[in-house]
């Protein structure tokens, strides 16, 4: 394995900033909108997702590489990946619950939601599409999760500030959250070109 460190750095920056999963690639939006009303919950969700995303990125790489490809079953990848993700989520939940009740209190309620976070499946699919290696898959998964966490936490803090704003009635709640996300996407366009 001769992974070029610079290459991995580019994958990371690309996934976190330039091609941010939420704001540019449009993945993982449901939790982004759904559990970001408070900074605390947003942070919890971000942490849980980071863990699961990285792990399932690796796991689905392994399944794809060693189970599907050898048998020429690439077309089954969606089914296989979703199973993998469900297992990883369940597994994480079990481990966390067993080892650290404290952590479970923080992350517990978010874990089941992650299965239907399409960023997780998205990473797995993109890994196969981009033919990433194992290490690349891991870095890509982590980068995607870090990008997700970054905007999620910023968004959570912003929404707390929004709670005091005199937003026009029709825009209260979801609409202004979308508008805000729009501005975030606008700001993230500044990163275009950072990666050639």
């Amino acid at each position: 394995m001769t992974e070029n460190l610079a290459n991995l750095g580019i994958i990371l920056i690309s996934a976190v900033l330039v091609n941010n999963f939420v704001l540019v690639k449009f993945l993982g939006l449901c939790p982004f909108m759904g559990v970001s009303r408070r900074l605390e919950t947003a942070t919890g969700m971000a942490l849980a997702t980071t863990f699961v995303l990285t792990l399932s990125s690796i796991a689905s790489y392994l399944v794809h590489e060693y189970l599907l490809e050898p048998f020429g079953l690439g077309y089954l990848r969606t089914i296989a990946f979703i199973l993998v993700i469900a297992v990883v989520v369940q597994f994480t939940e079990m481990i966390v619950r067993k080892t650290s009740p404290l952590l479970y209190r923080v992350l517990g309620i978010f874990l089941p939601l992650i299965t239907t976070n399409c960023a997780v499946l998205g990473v797995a699919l993109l890994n196969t599409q981009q033919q990433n290696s194992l290490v690349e898959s891991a870095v890509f998964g982590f980068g995607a999760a870090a990008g997700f966490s970054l905007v999620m936490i910023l968004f959570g803090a912003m929404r707390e500030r929004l709670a005091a704003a005199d937003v026009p009635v029709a825009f209260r709640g979801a609409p202004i959250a979308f508008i805000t996300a729009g501005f975030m996407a606008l700001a993230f366009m500044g990163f275009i070109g950072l990666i050639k």
Partner: protein
Amino acid sequence: MLSAVLVIALLALAFGLLLGFAAVKFRVEGDPVVERIDALLPQTQCGQCGFPGCRPYAEAIANNEADINQCPPGGEDGMRALAELLDRDPKPIGAEFGEEKTKMLAIIDEETCIGCTLCIQACPVDAILGAAKQMHTVIESECTGCELCIAPCPVDCIAMVPPRTTVESWKWPEPETFHSLNEREAHG
């Protein structure tokens, strides 16, 4: 085709085993969420939410069987606290459950009271004192204002009155401006 079926079946089998096992092994005992919800309810025990008391309502919320906007005594503030705890969108108290009223206290007109004890049986928090055939009184500090004692009284001697504002219990009002969040529909 066979290999496809085999591979996925293998995966699924492992998955199913794990889940079935987890479902039994790691069943959650007791639900701390219910406690936390219950702690936010006003404990008026009035049943306006459609459940026999606050705790049943708390359980219903926890099980997704009831919405968070069904408790008028808790009012806007209570609903907000629930929304925050459960990370749901706040919504106004449903009109069908009654309106948020200022808190009232029951007083018994001691002249008229015939000492029938019916109100004592109705009061969910034992806030009424008195024995059969004697005059009854409401313990002001313990009455939750649930109004459950009103209906049973055969001589209609119980009335709800707003608690007196004294210099001690007086609260500073919130200054109003034209950009106050006039419609207190929570958002964020």
